[in-house]
């Protein structure tokens, strides 16, 4: 990992955010062909190519410091973005252990973990955090275990308890969400939580996904990609703060669409947690402007075709309707009609 960690990025107000050429090349384009429809696109979360976003279980990239700062800003203003029901404490420790074990193994220059029995020492160089605590004893950490570790991870973490053949969303930290609310969904079953998604219920996607996840085993995590689009590189597009970002959609013009409209890709991971038998669901977001995206010719062609032909119900649900034409029109001259190779990687 040779990323240079940016220190002054912002995801609000002045939006100081961009992707380096290396970050663009490793961007996880979610379109494996020239069109898009829902599917149960779940695959084993096994290591991907060196340098890719799936090389490790948890991806840490050049935006780490700014994203962690944005977690804190959201939580300060709206503390209910972190919630955990009392019976989720063993799952909280599971998540803390999973993150600390993997981050310290995969990024030894940035994170270190020393275990002397239950006495653990955690050192996060990037955020300047060093704590010594007793694993299993919440009183020895400055915050609850999930609150503590989720602030030190890019993206959102959600934990589901398994009961009676279903999953219940009962803990999480959600500050970088594509318009859904932990506070609203807390306590819901798997299908209730996914209630607003169009078309997928009719395709029985959630029946199959639930059955699959109930069988998910320890040490066999899975992942999938999801996507939407966001105006400005804003992480916190939450229902709670809709008045702050909803109107941004009306500011998009033919002239500014390439810099304002961002493809927002979620790398979603699922892990069976060993002590609690609960399920961790991580949503790690990646933002790229259309201008940055179009530096890869294959991606410009493919994204043009995908957005142009997207099912109207999906475009509405993803909130693209107001600016989709601008995006398609800007991409159209970059699409010479030549074929694209299968898969999302650059040619």
């Amino acid at each position, binding site marked *: 990992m040779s990323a240079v960690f940016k220190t002054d990025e912002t995801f609000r107000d002045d939006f100081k955010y961009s992707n380096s050429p290396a970050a663009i090349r490793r961007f996880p384009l979610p379109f494996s062909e020239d069109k898009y429809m829902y599917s149960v696109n779940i695959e*084993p979360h096994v290591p991907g190519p060196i340098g890719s976003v799936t090389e490790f279980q948890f991806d840490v990239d050049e935006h780490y410091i700014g994203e962690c700062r944005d977690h804190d800003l959201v939580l300060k203003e709206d503390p209910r973005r972190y919630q955990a029901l009392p019976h989720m404490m063993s799952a909280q420790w599971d998540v803390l252990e999973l993150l600390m074990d993997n981050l310290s193994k995969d990024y030894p220059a940035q994170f270190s973990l020393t275990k002397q029995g239950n006495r653990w020492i955690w050192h996060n160089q990037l955020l300047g955090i060093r704590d010594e605590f007793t694993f299993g004893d919440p009183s020895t950490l400055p915050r609850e275990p999930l609150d503590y570790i989720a602030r030190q991870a890019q993206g959102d973490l959600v934990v589901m308890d398994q*009961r009676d053949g279903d999953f219940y969303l009962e803990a999480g930290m959600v500050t970088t969400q594509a318009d859904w609310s932990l506070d609203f969904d807390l306590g819901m079953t798997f299908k209730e939580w996914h209630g607003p998604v169009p078309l997928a219920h009719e395709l029985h996607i959630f029946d199959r996904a639930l059955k699959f996840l109930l*069988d998910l*085993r320890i040490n066999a995590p899975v992942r999938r990609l999801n996507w939407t689009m966001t105006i400005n590189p804003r992480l916190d597009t939450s229902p709670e703060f809709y008045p702050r970002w909803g109107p941004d959609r009306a500011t998009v013009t033919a002239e500014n669409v390439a810099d304002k409209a961002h493809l927002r890709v979620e790398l979603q991971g699922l892990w069976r947690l060993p*002590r609690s038998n609960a399920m961790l669901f991580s949503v790690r977001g990646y933002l790229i402007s259309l201008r940055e995206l179009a530096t890869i010719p294959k991606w410009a062609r493919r994204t043009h075709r995908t957005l142009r032909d997207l099912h109207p119900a999906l475009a509405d649900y993803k909130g693209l309707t107001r600016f989709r034409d601008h995006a398609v029109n800007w991409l159209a001259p970059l699409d010479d009609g030549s074929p694209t190779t299968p898969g999302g990687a650059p040619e």
Partner: protein
Amino acid sequence: MTQNNTFSVHVTAVTQVTPLIKHFILQAADGAPMPAFSGGSHVIVVMKDAARVYRNPYSLLSSPNDLSAYEIAVRRADESRGGSVFLHDQVTVGMALQITHPVNLFQLDKLARKHVLIAGGVGITAIAAQLEDLKIGSAHYELHYCVRGPEHAAFADRLIKQHGDRVRIYHDSANQWLDIEGLVAAQPLGTHLYVCGPTPMIDRVIASARAAGWANSHIHWEHFTAPPVGAPFEVFLKKSQKILNVLPDQSLLDAIEEAGVEAPYLCRGGVCGECKCQVLEVDGTLVHNDHYLSDEEKASGTLIMPCVSRVLGKTLVLDL
């Protein structure tokens, strides 16, 4: 082959704890901690002898709070497929075994206000680790442990030491019988019931609880029946274009794997549903020994769980 990733453990102690049950301690070769797990979990132990590969599920009965070792206890079942006999007769201290990561199909409900656990015989192995999880929680719990006689009460002393008067032991030989109907009728609202033991016991506990008005969501059981020995039969795997013979002491799933065909599985005990197969043709009768398919599905003759079920007759054609 990655779908049930196994890892190697060493047998560091073997103890005959009852006339029929042997207790095994399993540890990592390098002394590292074992992977964490939750009470009610099992592992699949993969064993090889000259002739065959056995894959048997065994509950982890050690404490989830002590990961220095895993413990399993194995009841010798001479009449079954041979995995337990192999463990009893062939496995000694110092040997290496392959096991899968733990899987929990019998987990505690974390919202229960009270837990009533009922174990029959070797069924205690599925419940012992649950008790350890409960001990550090705040909910009430009690164990009712039924055995044939004191010499069969494999872990009675240890359980009483750990859990004191929360443990009640019933000896058949002393004519002590658990009043299941009375027990389930007397529980406060919010209680969850867990049972592991012989099939008739499980059936009776479930029926009693339902008769007393319990919700299905509050009744939990683990049904690890050893697959019964049956007559041999022939199988044709249509997709793989392979013909194989299932031996009397071999499960259909074992035979499929031995033929080099990768079939999905999880529990190998007829409860999880993972290995469900489409039956294309059968010359004979399907003998369903699983606890997964509904009565209608069993009657339809189109589905089979190859981990425990077989055919009484000549041939079976599967969509594999």
